[in-house]
């Protein structure tokens, strides 16, 4: 028993070291921009860079639109599959997993071919069109995460009975989804939304090949040309990601509790 505890601690320490040592090293390196002393110079340079602000804001806006598109596609789809078509669930799950096995570069080349300026749907001929295509592409990339999060949320409620209870009280589909289903899976939707946000903020391939002024290509450009700033940016990105995860945890406290399973 004692020996078991010892090895458990050894594994824990090794795991923690694997996670924390590169992080500490990156933080330490990001603080060494000024010769001989630790300083926040690298952070000041990065945050003061107008390119950083512009690209970051662009990616934030794209992320918001991606989340909205994802919610609009995934929530009604997952809901309908649970309610009326459980038999096609394996097929839909397979489709939502495809973005994990098909590289983004394949998708984006497909887009360029399909929606180039000479195609019948010339999304890429204008900036708004290209931005819309980027949002659609990101919604595809985020599909596995968004679908799974929403589907897990729907599993915790009795979708069919709640739907029927709302129907018999006179509610139409819009009211049922907006006032009964969505509020009860909101935390799951938010989890999916934050994962989508994290994917979009750091994504490089699609943004670069569609020539969009996004944060990913900016990050890559900085890494290629600077020493300390990329380390500072990595830490900033890390803080944003962990901030998102913390928000999920905080918001989950406000989730509606199941009547049958008080938590």
């Amino acid at each position, binding site marked *: 028993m004692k020996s078991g505890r010892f090895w458990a601690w050894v594994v824990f320490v090794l795991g923690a070291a694997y996670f924390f040592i590169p992080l500490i090293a990156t933080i330490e390196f990001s603080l060494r921009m000024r010769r001989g002393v630790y300083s926040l110079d690298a952070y000041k340079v990065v945050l003061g860079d107008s390119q950083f602000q512009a690209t970051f804001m662009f990616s934030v806006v794209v992320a918001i639109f991606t989340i909205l598109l994802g919610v609009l596609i995934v929530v009604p789809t997952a809901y309908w599959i649970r309610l009326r078509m459980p038999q096609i669930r394996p097929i839909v799950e397979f489709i939502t997993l495809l973005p994990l096995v098909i590289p983004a570069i394949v998708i984006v080349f497909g887009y360029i071919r399909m929606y180039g300026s000479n195609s019948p749907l010339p999304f890429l001929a204008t900036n708004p069109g290209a931005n819309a295509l980027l949002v659609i592409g990101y919604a595809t990339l985020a599909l596995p995460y968004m679908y799974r999060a929403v589907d897990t949320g729907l599993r915790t409620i009795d979708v069919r009975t*709640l739907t029927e209870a709302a129907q018999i*009280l006179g509610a139409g589909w819009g009211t049922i989804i907006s006032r009964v289903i969505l509020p009860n899976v909101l935390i799951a939707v938010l989890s999916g939304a934050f994962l989508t946000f994290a994917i979009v903020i750091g994504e490089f391939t699609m943004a670069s090949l569609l020539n969009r002024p996004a944060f990913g290509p900016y990050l890559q450009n900085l890494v290629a040309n600077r020493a300390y700033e990329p380390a500072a940016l990595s830490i900033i990105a890390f803080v944003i990601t962990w901030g998102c995860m913390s928000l999920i945890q905080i918001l989950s406290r406000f989730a509606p509790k199941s009547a049958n399973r008080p938590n």
Partner: protein
Amino acid sequence: MAEPFLSIQHVRKSFGATTVVEDFNLDVAPGEFVSFLGPSGCGKTTVLRMVAGFEEPSAGKIVVSGKDITRLKPNQRNIGMVFQAYALFPNLTVAQNIGFGLKVAGMPRAAIDSRVAEMLDIIRLPQMADRYPYQLSGGQQQRIALARAIAPKPKLLLLDEPLSALDAKVRISLREEIRSIQKKLGITTIFVTHDQEEALSISDRIAVMYGGKAEQVGTPFEIYNRPATKFVANFVGTLNVLEGKVTDAASGKVQVNTQEVSLKGKLNGSKSGDTLSLALRPEAISLGRQPGHDTSLSGEIAEVHFLGSVIRVRVGIGGNTVSLDTFNNSATPPPVVGEKADISFSSGDMLVLH
């Protein structure tokens, strides 16, 4: 019956090759409380779901207040329903749950608040308005579900095994409360249950269902005392079934084991030599020969169970066993297993099962 409020006419429902409801007919009078009673899989919930609009009949029609609602969507029917699993919306407070249907109907806020308060008073939970469903017990949740169902003043109330998930004590008090609210509001109600005691205690009429059909529709008294079929007799209440052989059809003589009983006028076309199933309720039988009982059979005490106020005795009569209850009397010791005993009953209480 006067003009029925709800009329279910020749309704059939099939899922693929399986027919779960077959030629179901029922007329329900305004303000009547009718129970669908039957074992699992008998089609009672399917009929209820067709009335609610969640399932579409394969044939037949459903008429409410003279209007054919067979093809209407559930949200167009103005029907209230209480579900077995409560189905309260977890994200809404009790008041918001009760007011949900009123809000959907576009009722002004003040009117909703007033109606919600009225409903909370009716179910005697006025202090619960701001609670969430998870903060309530099962019985309280089901009362809220009932209030939510009747708040929009529906034409018809459907109760789908609303008491099944509750413990015995709450079940009894809530069923009485449901009946009292239903009488007070005069709302026509269909109640689905597999619990015969529940159905017998609160219904105006009961439709006993089996294999997708209504075996018998009648008052609790009729269903219990004059079961139309062997299934109804067996399913409702406890029943002793004795196998007998018609010895003289003309005079109504039937032989049970080696003893003879007279069932004049009850044999309905049976011929001498036919084998019959004869049924007797335990409360119709007495231990020993009693005045007023015209028939007796001799047997042997097979089992004795002392239950406190009641002693349950099983008497073996040839290949048949008859169960009966006697009140405990401190001056008389209970019968002893193996001793000879007579049972007596009135031949009028004996039912011939078809």
